[in-house]
C-alpha cells in the first residue's frame, strides 16, 4: 500500500522537478544575458540541474545506481578540478572540451537506444522504436558525434597541441563524401531493421566527419566554431530527449540550440565575417594589392612614455591579443590605477573582436579587477579619441588599423576599428614588427603621432609601473 502510493505520486513529482528545472534554465540564461544579473543566472541554472539530477536518481525502475553515482562522482570531480585550476585565458578550450563531452553523451544515448532496437530486431522483433523516435535518435547520434570529435579538435588546437592547419587538395570534396557516407548509413538504420555493424559504421563516419571538418580551420576562428558545436550539442540533446520522452532535455536542448545558433552568428558578425567563411573560407584572400605604407616607426622609451601619461588629462588604454599572450592585464591595471590616483581620467576601450574570442579582453580585465564601468565600447569611445591626450595600445594590432577605413584592397577593409589614429598621441606596446591576426601592415604604427614601445607586454607594463613610482619618489 505504502509502496503503491509512492509509485503513483513519484513519477508526477519527478516530472514536476523537470518542469521546474527547465524553467530555471530559461530564467538563468535570461539573467546571464545582462551584466548586472549574470552572476545569479548560472546559480539558478545550477539549482535546476541539481534538482533534475536528484529527481532522476529517484526514478522508479532504475538499476546500476552505484555505477551511476560513481560515474558522476569521478567525472564530475575531475571536471570540477580541471575547471577550477585552468587559467582564465584557457577558458575557451575548456568550454570546447566540456561541450564535446555533452555531444558525446547525447550520441552515446542515441547509440544505446539503437543498440537496443538492433537487439530486438536480431531476435526477430519489429518496430522496437516509433518512426519519429528512430529518426531523431539517428539524427542525435550524427550531430552529437560531429560535435564530440569536432570539439576535441578545437580543444587540441586552442591548447596548442596542433598548430598547423591540415589542408590538402580535394579536402572539401572528401569531407562531403564522408558526410554522405554517414547520412546514407543513418538512412539504412532508419529504413532497414537496425544492425550492430551499421550502427558502428555510422558512428565512426560521423566522428570522422567532425574531425575532418574541424582540422582545416585556423585556431583563431575556433571561438565561432565552438559556439556552433555548442548549438549542435543542444540540438542533439533535444533530439535524444524526444527519444527518451524527457521534456527537460527537449526544452533545454532546443533553447540552447536556438540560442547557440544566434550567438554563433553574432560572434561571426562581430568579426565582420560570415559563418560560411569561417567554416570553409580562409582569411586574408584580399581582392587586390594592398597599398604600401610610407614612413618609419618612431620609438619611445618607457620613462618618457610614463611621464607622458602621468601628466595627461585623458588616457585611453586599448588592449589586444598581445596583452593576453603576455598575461599583462594585472600589471596594466596596476599602472592604470596609479594614473587614476594621480588624477588622470583613464578608460579602457575594448573592440568587439580584440583578442581571440568575443569578450576576451573583458574577461581578462575583469580577472585583473578592472571595474566594468571603466570599460567603454567601440561606438562610445570612437568620437572621443580627438579629445584624448594619450592612447596606450598594448598588444592590439588589427583592431586599431586605420587601413580598414582607407584601403579597399585590404582584407580587413570595412571592419569597424578603434579610431586611435585620431588621438593626440598614441603609444604602442608590442614585441617587434610582428603582424596581427590578419597578417597585414598597420598604418597606425607609422603615423606621426605614434610612438612604439617595443618589448613584451608584461615586462613593459611593469616598467611603466616602476617609472611612475619613481616619479613620486
Amino acid at each position, binding site marked *: 500500500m505504502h509502496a503503491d502510493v509512492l509509485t503513483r505520486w513519484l513519477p508526477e513529482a519527478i516530472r514536476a522537478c523537470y518542469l521546474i528545472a527547465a524553467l530555471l534554465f530559461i530564467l538563468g540564461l535570461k539573467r*546571464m544575458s*545582462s551584466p548586472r544579473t549574470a552572476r545569479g543566472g548560472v546559480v539558478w541554472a*545550477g539549482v535546476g540541474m541539481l534538482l533534475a539530477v536528484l529527481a532522476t536518481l529517484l526514478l522508479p525502475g532504475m538499476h546500476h545506481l552505484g555505477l551511476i553515482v560513481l560515474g558522476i562522482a569521478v567525472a564530475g570531480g*575531475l571536471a570540477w578540478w580541471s575547471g577550477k585550476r585552468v587559467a582564465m585565458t584557457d577558458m575557451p578550450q575548456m568550454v570546447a572540451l*566540456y561541450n564535446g563531452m555533452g555531444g*558525446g553523451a547525447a550520441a552515446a544515448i542515441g547509440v544505446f537506444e539503437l543498440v537496443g532496437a538492433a537487439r530486438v530486431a536480431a531476435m526477430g522483433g519489429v518496430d522496437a522504436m516509433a518512426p519519429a523516435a528512430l529518426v531523431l535518435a539517428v539524427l542525435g547520434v550524427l550531430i552529437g558525434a560531429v560535435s564530440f570529435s569536432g570539439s576535441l579538435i578545437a580543444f587540441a588546437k586552442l591548447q596548442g597541441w596542433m598548430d598547423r592547419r591540415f589542408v590538402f587538395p580535394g579536402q572539401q570534396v572528401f569531407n562531403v563524401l564522408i558526410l554522405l557516407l554517414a547520412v546514407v548509413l543513418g538512412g539504412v538504420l532508419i529504413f532497414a531493421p537496425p544492425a550492430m555493424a551499421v550502427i558502428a559504421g555510422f558512428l565512426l563516419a560521423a566522428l570522422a566527419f567532425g574531425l575532418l571538418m574541424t582540422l582545416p580551420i585556423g585556431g583563431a576562428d575556433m571561438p565561432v566554431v565552438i559556439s556552433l558545436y555548442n548549438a549542435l550539442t543542444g540540438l542533439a540533446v533535444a533530439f535524444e530527449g524526444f527519444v527518451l520522452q*524527457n521534456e527537460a532535455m527537449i526544452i533545454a536542448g*532546443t533553447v*540552447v540550440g536556438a540560442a547557440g545558433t544566434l550567438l554563433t552568428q553574432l560572434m561571426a558578425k562581430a568579426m565582420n565575417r560570415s559563418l560560411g567563411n569561417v567554416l570553409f573560407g580562409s582569411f586574408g584572400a584580399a581582392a587586390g594589392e594592398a597599398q604600401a605604407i610610407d614612413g618609419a616607426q618612431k620609438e619611445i622609451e618607457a620613462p618618457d612614455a610614463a611621464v607622458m601619461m602621468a601628466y595627461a588629462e585623458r588616457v585611453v588604454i586599448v588592449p589586444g591579443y598581445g596583452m593576453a599572450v603576455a598575461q599583462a592585464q594585472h600589471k596594466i591595471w596596476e599602472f592604470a590605477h596609479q594614473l587614476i590616483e594621480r588624477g588622470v581620467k583613464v578608460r579602457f576601450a575594448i573592440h568587439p573582436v580584440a583578442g581571440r574570442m568575443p569578450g576576451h579582453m573583458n574577461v581578462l580585465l575583469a580577472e585583473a579587477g578592472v571595474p566594468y564601468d571603466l570599460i567603454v*565600447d567601440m561606438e562610445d569611445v570612437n568620437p572621443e579619441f580627438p579629445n584624448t591626450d594619450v592612447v596606450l595600445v598594448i598588444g592590439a594590432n588589427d583592431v586599431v588599423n586605420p587601413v580598414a577605413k582607407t584601403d579597399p584592397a585590404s582584407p580587413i577593409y570595412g571592419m569597424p576599428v578603434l579610431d586611435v589614429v585620431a588621438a593626440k598621441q598614441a603609444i604602442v606596446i608590442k614585441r617587434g614588427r610582428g603582424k596581427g591576426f590578419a597578417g597585414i601592415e598597420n598604418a597606425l604604427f607609422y603615423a606621426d603621432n605614434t610612438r612604439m614601445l617595443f618589448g613584451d607586454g608584461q615586462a613593459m607594463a611593469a616598467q611603466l609601473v616602476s617609472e611612475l613610482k619613481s616619479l613620486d619618489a
Partner: protein
Amino acid sequence: MIDGFVALYIFMLAAFTGYEIIARVPVILHTPLMSGSNFVHGIVLVGAMVALGHADGPLDIAIGFIAVVLAAGNAVGGYVVTERMLEMFKSSRPGGANGEKG
C-alpha cells in the same frame, strides 16, 4: 507521452524562447553566455542516467557508463567554468548602477 506534433510545438516555442533570450546580449557577455548555454545542455546527464539505469548486459552498461561520464563532465565542468567567468563581472560602484550598460 509527447507525440510528434506536440514535440514540434515544444521545439518551436523553445526555439523562439532561446532566440529571444540571446537577441539583446552585449558582446562582452558572448563568451560567458556560450559557456552558460554549454552548461545548460549538460542536462543530457539526466538522459545518460536513465540509459545506464535501464542497461541490460555488458555492452549496454558500457555505453551507458560512457554516457554518464561524458555528461557529468559537461554538466560539472560547464558550471565551474561559467561560474568563474561570471564571478568576475563586478562594478566599481557598489550598487551596480551602471549595470545595464555592458
